[in-house]
């Protein structure tokens, strides 16, 4: 084994090209994965806010919150013993600015200089979650971190919302819950009042909400609640993953990025396989000598695998460092989110890919005749 490592250490120039290629592929994979997760997360914040809970919509809404109308008491008296708590969710798009900074016209200046109107998604809610605090009082609003990245806003600041510039006080700042735009969260009555000033056509009839959120009781699976709610006439339930899956843009992006990441892995496999195939060709004589001196094909294969693994590890380390610098250099408004679990997937995936690429030389190694070391 140490022979393989010594070769790597003492003849690095031989391995430089494949290492460069692998490092670049790592950068590509990490950034692709970062966009995959970032784009997806930037559109699904409100769902993630209720992770573990069940969304209840009208069954004609195709799981699209915007189009759903559910009666506020649709789940009461239904004998749902497995549901611990029920809340609601209402949503509308509008604009917001820090009070006193809203300019009349945005076409000339679309920048993030902290003085402009921002597109925001306004949510009305009732039930707190691991991310959301209790619904704020009248005149108060909870904002997510994404808004603070776009304009300078702190707890206690006053925002103005919608075309009629309704003033609201920032009560809390929560984790990024973007839904294509920064999100603002108010209580249900405030939502109705505000949306009435934004676009009354968006208001569901009195006593109705866009969606209800059912919190499963302790030790109850979300899927159990989904099944029960689906039995109720006119309702359709889904867990967070299914809600996200129902977003066609997210679905398309995921499919696209997953396909591209898959092809990138295949390219990595080819790079490694081609490289070690060539190195084996080049070193046929040396491997024959190794065999003559008593090495088995398995030992030679192990050596190549070790080289592939070490090369990949170094490429991963350097590639991820480069990616970190690249990501940091990207505009902060770009939806890139590098998740540790995803990095781990990339690392494991690439290691497995390289080992397979290295092992593809097995046939070639097996064919090397130790007798060719003589004569």
């Amino acid at each position, binding site marked *: 084994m140490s022979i393989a490592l010594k070769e790597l250490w003492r003849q690095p120039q031989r391995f430089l090209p494949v290492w460069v290629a692998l490092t670049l592929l790592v950068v590509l994979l990490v950034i692709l994965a970062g966009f995959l997760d970032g784009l997806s997360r930037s559109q699904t914040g409100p769902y993630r806010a209720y992770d573990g809970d069940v969304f209840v919509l009208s069954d004609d809404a195709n799981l699209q919150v915007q189009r759903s109308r559910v009666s506020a008491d649709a789940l009461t008296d239904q004998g749902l013993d497995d549901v611990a708590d029920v809340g609601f969710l209402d949503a509308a798009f509008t604009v917001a600015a820090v009070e006193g900074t809203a300019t009349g016209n945005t076409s000339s200046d679309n920048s993030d200089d902290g003085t402009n109107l921002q597109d925001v998604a306004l949510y009305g809610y009732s039930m707190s979650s691991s991310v959301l605090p209790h619904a704020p009082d009248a005149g108060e609003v909870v904002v997510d971190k994404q808004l603070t990245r776009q304009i300078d806003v702190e707890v206690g600041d006053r925002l103005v919302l919608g075309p009629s510039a309704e003033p609201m006080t920032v009560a809390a700042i929560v984790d990024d819950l973007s839904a294509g735009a920064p999100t603002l969260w108010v209580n249900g009555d405030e939502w109705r009042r505000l949306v009435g000033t934004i676009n009354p056509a968006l208001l569901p009839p009195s006593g109705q909400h866009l969606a209800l959120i059912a919190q499963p009781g302790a030790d109850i699976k979300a899927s159990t609640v989904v099944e029960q709610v689906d039995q109720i006439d006119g309702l359709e339930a889904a867990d967070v993953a299914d809600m996200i899956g129902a977003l066609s843009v997210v679905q398309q992006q995921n499919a696209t990025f997953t396909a591209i990441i898959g092809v990138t892995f295949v390219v990595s496999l080819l790079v490694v396989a081609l490289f070690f195939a060539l190195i084996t060709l080049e070193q046929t004589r040396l491997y024959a000598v190794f065999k003559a*001196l*008593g*090495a088995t094909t398995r030992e030679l294969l192990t050596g190549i695998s070790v080289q592939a693994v070490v090369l990949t590890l170094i490429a991963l380390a350097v590639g991820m460092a480069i990616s970190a610098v690249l990501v940091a250099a990207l505009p902060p408004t770009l939806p890139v989110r590098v998740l540790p679990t995803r990095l781990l997937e990339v690392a494991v995936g690439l290691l497995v890919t390289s080992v397979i690429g290295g092992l593809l030389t097995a046939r070639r190694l097996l064919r090397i005749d*130790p007798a060719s070391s*003589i004569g």
Partner: protein
Amino acid sequence: MSALDLKDVRKVYGDGDQKVVALDNVSLSVADNEMLFIMGPSGSGKTTLLTVAGGLLQATSGSVVVGGTDISGFDGRELAAFRRDRIGFVFQAVNLVPFLTARENLLLVRQFGGGKIDTDARDRADSLLTDLGLADRAGNLPSQLSGGQQQRVAIGRALMNEPPLVLVDEPTSSLDSELGQQVMELLTKEIKSRGLAAVVVTHDDRILDFADRIVQIVDGKLTSDSSDNSSASPSGR
């Protein structure tokens, strides 16, 4: 018991019209502590004889017994272990590993087959290098050594695992006359002092003095078990 016993060994390459008989019913015995030279024109089968004796190739028929072990039925794995433990090879092209130092080239053979480099191995490598006059070259890569020095490292590597049989292929082909003599003297000294058997394939007339016995091979057949340089003497010179 002899170090090497070949009985009716045939080696045939290819089949049908392509058939080439490289070894034709060769029988040969090499005693412990004997240095046997095999001479013959190119294509006569002397290299094949060496590869069959060293377990690099299996004979088509006949038996190959090394140090009392019949290797005729060995599979690839068993042959690899056999080569590692029982045979020392000195290759014509030296074949040192370019990215390993002289010392590491010696230790190399200890690492195959799951072996470990222990103090014993390191001591042996150092003492071999000292014997070969390379003590101060132990940390040099082959590219930093002269041709003669490289050949000496190769001899050290062949002796590293204390094999009872050393097989030497054209040891002087790439060395000039004087260097060739020096290397052969050293090789003979190391082999004789350890009481090992050696088979040396060569067509270099100038080194025949080092042989205990010389056999000629032509067209895969041993034609003569010729000059007994000094049949019983422990050293040729």
